[in-house]
């Protein structure tokens, strides 16, 4: 294919891409759950991921444990999501459908500035957890343990999410409310509580993405916008409101970004948008989008 790229480099880059894509998958599945349930495009999605990254930074510097950091990031940001849904989004339901998008956009402008005031302008690094340092060597291919962890961890999260949605009562109600929230309400379930839970799960997933990305990136106030953009592109590629689309789209975009930075570095930030444009040309509703929801 390319004479200067041998198979070792290929596999390493594929592995890089899958790890990066796993983070994208977490981001986009959160966005997809929120959209599916609430019909809200969460413009502040990356902002929640950024807050998750900062929560890890604070929790790790207080407790010294990365596991505690991830757990507290998810809990804190999910609770914040609950508060935002209850006090800011709830009053907007039933009005102009663009208002929730605009409201979360306002948050994505204001919150990073608040973070700049509290934590300063410079990024906050978080060390790789000691147990996940080093690398695993498979033949000629060197795989960093932390990236392996990201892939395995994302897989575990997705399986538990899937089990939760398929097997638990609450998951069943969430799936039903995604289909037809009015009918669920008529059957006697309090959908407004379900929406709050859905928003909390979505923001929690965003926080998780920010949290596991932070040892590689460091937490910066402006990282949120990039993450929102990634979540949007993955969602457009995968299909809005589809979990399967979020997974395939996330991994695809991750791998594409990884290979472009290897082959043509200066195009690495542009590649995912090109990919989106191509998908829109070939299959406008996204890879897994339902035809009604475009």
């Amino acid at each position, binding site marked *: 294919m390319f004479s200067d790229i041998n198979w070792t480099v290929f596999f390493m880059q594929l592995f890089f891409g899958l790890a990066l894509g796993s983070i994208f998958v977490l981001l986009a599945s959160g966005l997809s759950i929120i*959209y599916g349930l609430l*019909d809200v*495009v969460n413009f502040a999605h990356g902002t929640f991921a950024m807050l998750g990254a900062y929560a890890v930074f604070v929790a790790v510097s207080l407790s010294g444990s990365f596991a505690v950091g991830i757990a507290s990031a998810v809990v804190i940001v999910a609770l914040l999501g609950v508060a935002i849904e209850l006090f800011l989004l709830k009053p907007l339901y039933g009005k102009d459908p663009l208002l929730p998008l605009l409201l979360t956009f*306002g948050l994505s*402008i204001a919150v*990073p*500035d608040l973070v700049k005031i509290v934590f300063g302008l410079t990024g906050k690094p978080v060390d790789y957890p000691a147990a996940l340092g080093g690398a695993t060597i498979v033949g000629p291919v060197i795989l960093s343990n932390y990236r392996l962890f990201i892939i395995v961890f994302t897989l575990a999260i997705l399986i538990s999410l899937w089990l939760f949605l398929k097997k638990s009562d609450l998951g069943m109600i969430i799936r039903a409310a995604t289909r037809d929230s009015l009918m669920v309400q008529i059957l006697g379930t309090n959908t407004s509580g379900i929406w709050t839970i859905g928003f909390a799960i979505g923001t929690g997933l965003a926080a998780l993405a920010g949290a596991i990305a932070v040892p590689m990136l460091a937490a910066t106030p402006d990282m949120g916008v990039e993450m929102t953009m990634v979540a949007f592109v993955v969602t457009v590629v995968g299909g809005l409101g589809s979990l399967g689309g979020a997974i395939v789209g996330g991994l695809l975009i991750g791998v594409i970004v990884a290979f472009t930075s290897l082959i043509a570095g200066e195009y690495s930030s542009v590649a995912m948008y090109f990919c*989106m444009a191509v998908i829109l040309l070939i299959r406008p509703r996204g890879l897994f989008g339902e035809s009604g929801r*475009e």
Partner: protein
Amino acid sequence: MEHPIENREAILKEVAPKPQSSVVWGAALVLAALPFVVSVPLATEILIWGLFGLGFNLLLGYTGVLSFGHAAYFGLGAYAAGLAMRYWNVGIGAAIAAAVAASVLLACFIGALAIRRRGVYFAMISLAFGQMLYFLALSPLKHITRGEDGLTHIPLVDVFSVALHKPRPIYYFIYAVTMIMLYVTWRILQSPFGRLLRAFRENEERAKACGFNTTLVKFLTLVLSALYGGLAGALNTLYLNYVPLATLFWLTSGTIVMMTILGGKGTFLGPLIGAAVFLFLQNTISLFTPRWELFVGSIFVIIILVFPGGIMGTLQVFLLDRKMARLRKQAGADPQGG
């Protein structure tokens, strides 16, 4: 205005009076005096962003399509004008024409790809395309656009041998262009096409059922609003004599959304008022703290929650409510009129 009401038609006429073109002349007079009230740079920015907002409002306010990527048209217009002047040494007219042409072509491309998509989908797609242009200018096209530094060394120009790099001449040049476009916007909104736009916003399904091609109308409005964006971008280049990379940044798209909502989407003067209030707030807050985004973002959130109609929309509803109350009272006193 206490005159008796003859019949139902007269009531309707008074509740929703036919808009008067005096709005245009009034705005023109106020804006002509603006540089004597506020600083000339602030006044110039109000004109540029107001013009950008006029086009954006056609799309968001009158057609109900939210684009989150209008920085693409503004920025492309700014770069097209700057590049044409810098590399080909063209005159001011050709630079503006190049800017408008580039933006319109881009809108045709993005519109063809995405205008059929549902509202939220279009918002996401337009944002992503806007970012694509930003990153293209930042890195792969760095040898032309000068990347992060922005495009400098744009030659100075003059119109009718008046130098356009002095604050007042450039203000009145931009003023002239903006007033022409304000009048054009007025004529568009009074035309059958303008009525069609509002019909779409109120009920797209119904407009479609009436036999109108909704996709085509949305596409045309997108292209039209891109024309305003490209023009505003070109004027921005003439004003700054420089093209900052930030013209393509997503925050530019966000700013025009915030200005339009703040002023009142779907109201004729909303974008101009929104641009003026936004820029005035931004300038004032920047005097005290570099963290103006925190304040502007929070104000925007409050507006969405409490006054989604913006300044002009809320004012209109307030005036209409008062008028309705008065008319109801009159109708009560004179049952024949009801």
